[in-house]
């Protein structure tokens, strides 16, 4: 369905249910890459400014059906894809995405839409260079979510599906369906599993190893304000010399 990433940049995605700890991990990864002088861009699910007011209205008024929910989320993603992710990938940036099309494949199918249909919706987006799936048992995720938030939101709990009148029960049933979908996608898309119950540091170590493999020999877009803090890898040196060359060209252009 999704094609290999044909662009100069690299696309790294984290996936997992709410409370799996993926956002913490990608945030650490983002900062780590930045300090290494790599041009990196962060993009998160459901963040299109354009679609925001519509999503808010529909959520507030409980207007969504599984199909319209799926389509609006795809609209949100398309806006981010066309205006942010694609230009960044073309420019040679490392794009880190907190959730990607797989979130839609998991959630929308858990809501009852056709799996092939939703896969077609996102077929304009390439397969990431790495998908890291943070897997946690349902109980752990529920515990993390319920202790961190006052109340689970209507759609987050899958209340629209009428699985249960109780929000926590509905949330559990809905998240379990999502876990099942994710588990099925591990082999379908070659996702790399990380055990989300391990300590944050241990997971981060693993994440960095995985990303290092992806970036081996990668010559992306040099960082304009480049400073090395964590040792000089070959790619970093390369990037630095390219940056210097660009600066020189720019100076000559000014003259």
């Amino acid at each position, binding site marked *: 369905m999704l094609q290999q990433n044909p662009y100069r940049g690299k696309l790294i995605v984290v996936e997992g249910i709410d409370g799996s700890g993926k956002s913490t991990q990608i945030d650490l990864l983002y900062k780590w890459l930045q300090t290494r002088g790599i041009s990196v861009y962060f993009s998160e699910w459901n963040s*299109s400014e*354009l*679609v925001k*007011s*519509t999503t808010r*209205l*529909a959520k507030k*008024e409980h*207007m*969504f*059906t*599984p*199909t*319209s929910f799926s*389509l*609006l989320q*795809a*609209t949100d993603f*398309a*806006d981010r*894809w*066309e*205006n942010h992710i694609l230009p960044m990938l073309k420019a040679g940036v490392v794009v880190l995405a907190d959730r990607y099309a797989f979130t839609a494949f998991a959630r929308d199918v858990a*809501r*009852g*839409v*056709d799996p*092939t*249909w939703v896969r*077609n*919706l996102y*077929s*304009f987006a390439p397969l990431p260079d790495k998908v890291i799936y943070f897997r946690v048992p349902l109980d752990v995720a529920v515990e993390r979510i319920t202790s961190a938030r006052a109340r689970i939101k209507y759609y987050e709990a899958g209340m629209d599906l009428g699985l249960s009148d109780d929000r926590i029960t509905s949330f559990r049933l809905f998240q379990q369906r999502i876990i099942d979908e994710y588990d099925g996608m591990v082999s379908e898309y070659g996702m790399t599993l990380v055990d989300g119950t391990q300590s944050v540091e241990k997971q981060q170590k693993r994440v960095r190893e995985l990303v290092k493999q992806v970036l081996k020999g990668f010559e992306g877009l040099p960082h304009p304000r480049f400073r090395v803090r964590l040792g000089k890898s070959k790619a970093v040196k390369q990037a630095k010399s390219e940056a210097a060359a660009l600066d020189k060209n720019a100076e000559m252009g000014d003259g």
Partner: protein
Amino acid sequence: MKKVQFYGAGFPYDSIKDLPGKLIVLEGTDGVGRSTQIQLLRSWLEDEGYAVSDTGLRRSPMTQPGLDKAKTGHTLSRLTTSLFYATDFADRLENQIIPALKAGFYVLSDRYFYSIIARDVVRGVNPAWARKVYGFALRPDAVFYLKTDVEHLVTRMVHGRGFNYWEAGMDIRCADNLYDSFCVYQSQLIQQFDQMAEEYGFTTIDACRPIKTIFEDLRGQIKALSKEE
């Protein structure tokens, strides 16, 4: 009663048994006179004692404010626009069209998803992808394609609402001025409609004729449709 049919998977979570109403679609490019005909058909059907509901693009209460805002700002890219319109369409189909058909209404739809596909494809969207997006769409009981040519459209624009940015396809700058862009853009749309007429089996109606003649033609076709049962 006719079996409920979708172009693809439909709504797997919602088994729709029977829809006693009739879904009648009027398709065709901008300014071809669709809304005029819908008004006439509505009065006629109501006069005959049928309950009528009408709908058209961008009328979903969920997406309308967002789409209107985006349109004013010209900020939408093509895939985003395409999917935003698909959201509007899905919302109206599930929340307006299908409930009305369940209640036995005649639903007159001013455009259907075919128009969205035509506009998307002219803007470079993959035609196969766009068609698959609408796998949830219900097959209408009839699709009347009001067919015309650019020359005829131009006279209607000149003596009607004038040329506008969107109808001239100025977002993709088919030419450097409104008139030329309008002609290029509309002829590309007509080409898409012609292709879909064959693919989806539209009933083609010659829309270069006077309003009354077109209406009588449509009325005759719809009468025949009701008699089929």
